[in-house]
């Protein structure tokens, strides 16, 4: 079963910085980010593409980076939780998660925040139902989600203001 597979050269722009590496085709994007580049903000919480802890934005779209091979991201622009704050200022969504106690153990939080970003990018003032629909792909076992809903509402209000 062991076959020698050529490694592939990839170039990916991550949080505004270009990275070039040679990777095995089977290397998952999440492992590329975490193990190769040391961007350990996105987490791994399952293996069936359910939990969303590994959510990052690829070319502006939220995806589960455990369900994408790094080679598929060749040439793409990737944004992870580490790239969300700019010039040392927290993004309004990060601030809202802090203010509203949207995180407990924090494991789902980076994915949850990135999914929230996608949600607010597409809908600047979502209703509670739209918030819940938009975060359906992210599991949290700690918060019961209520403070997360509050955080997204609050971020929307601040970003719209």
């Amino acid at each position, binding site marked *: *079963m*062991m*076959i020698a*597979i*050529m490694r*592939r050269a990839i170039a990916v722009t991550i949080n505004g910085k270009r990275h070039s590496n040679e990777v*095995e*085709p*089977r290397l*998952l994007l999440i492992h590329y980010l975490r193990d190769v580049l040391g961007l350990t903000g996105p987490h*791994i919480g399952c*293996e*069936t*593409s*359910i939990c*969303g802890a590994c*959510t990052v934005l690829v070319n502006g*779209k*939220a*995806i*589960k980076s*455990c*369900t*994408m*091979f790094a*080679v*598929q991201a060749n040439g793409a622009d990737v944004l992870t939780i580490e790239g969300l704050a700019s010039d040392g200022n927290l993004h309004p969504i990060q601030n809202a998660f802090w203010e509203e106690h949207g995180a407990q153990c924090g494991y789902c939080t980076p994915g949850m925040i990135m*999914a929230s970003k*996608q*949600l607010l990018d597409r809908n600047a003032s979502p209703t509670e139902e739209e918030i819940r629909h*938009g*975060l*359906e*792909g*992210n599991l949290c076992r700690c918060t019961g989600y209520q403070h997360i809903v509050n955080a997204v509402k609050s971020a929307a209000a601040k970003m719209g203001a």
Partner: protein
Amino acid sequence: MIAHPFDYLTPKSLPEALLLLADPDAKALAGGMSLIPMMKLRLAAPAKLVDLRGVPGLTSISEESGRLKIGALATHFDIESSRLVRAKCPLLAMAAAHIGDVQVRNMGTIGGSIAHADPAADYPAALQALEATISIAGVGGTRAVSAAEFFVDTFTTAVGPGELVVEVSVPVEAAGTGTSYQKCLQPASGFAIVGVAARLQAVSGNISMARIGVTGLSGCSFRANGVEALLESGSDPQAAAAAIANGIDANSDIHASAEYRLHLARVYAAKAIRAALAAAR
């Protein structure tokens, strides 16, 4: 979590892709939403992955002589958010919006989904009701098959070895057509326990055309011809919906027994028919 090693190929044209897929150890990769989880669990172990995303022209959504042509690599998000699809074929947009979650819809493609032919996927119900045509390309050329012919059995389609779904064509809905997709979802996976797509033409409540597509209920999506005939002959929606389960060997699992699934099919068929009727007005 970790797939078997594979080689990764990136064709730049359709003929090149088809050439690569002629290798029986090669598997096409579109969005990967069905394939990659299987590979991570090592249930699937293709030796070669042929990434189709570099093949030009497979993502477009356009209108052409009364039909919408959806490229196989259009994502579920492209479809649910496309103004064209929402305006001219809302049933397809509605089915797309029911798939998985935001992240899955951002990556998953219509071609990949239907080629996988999961018995509980959402598109097949809509495509059956829409009498969609699916274009399948092979080295010998491209052929078109109807949705009814396309979905053969559990995980089995009309796509032959080395072939590729390249386009899905659906009708532009005529005035007076109402459609709806109603889904009872399994709370863990989000797959349909049953999903029913209804597509009706009605004038002042009289149904002149009925197309009902069903997913999740049995091993393969299907058209509920019995229900359609009843609706077209003036039967009331509730009574017609009740016929959906006739002669069906329903699936059974820990989430729903066959008996309950059959019941849900009747309930969701009635919901879909009522919603489609309301939309037709």
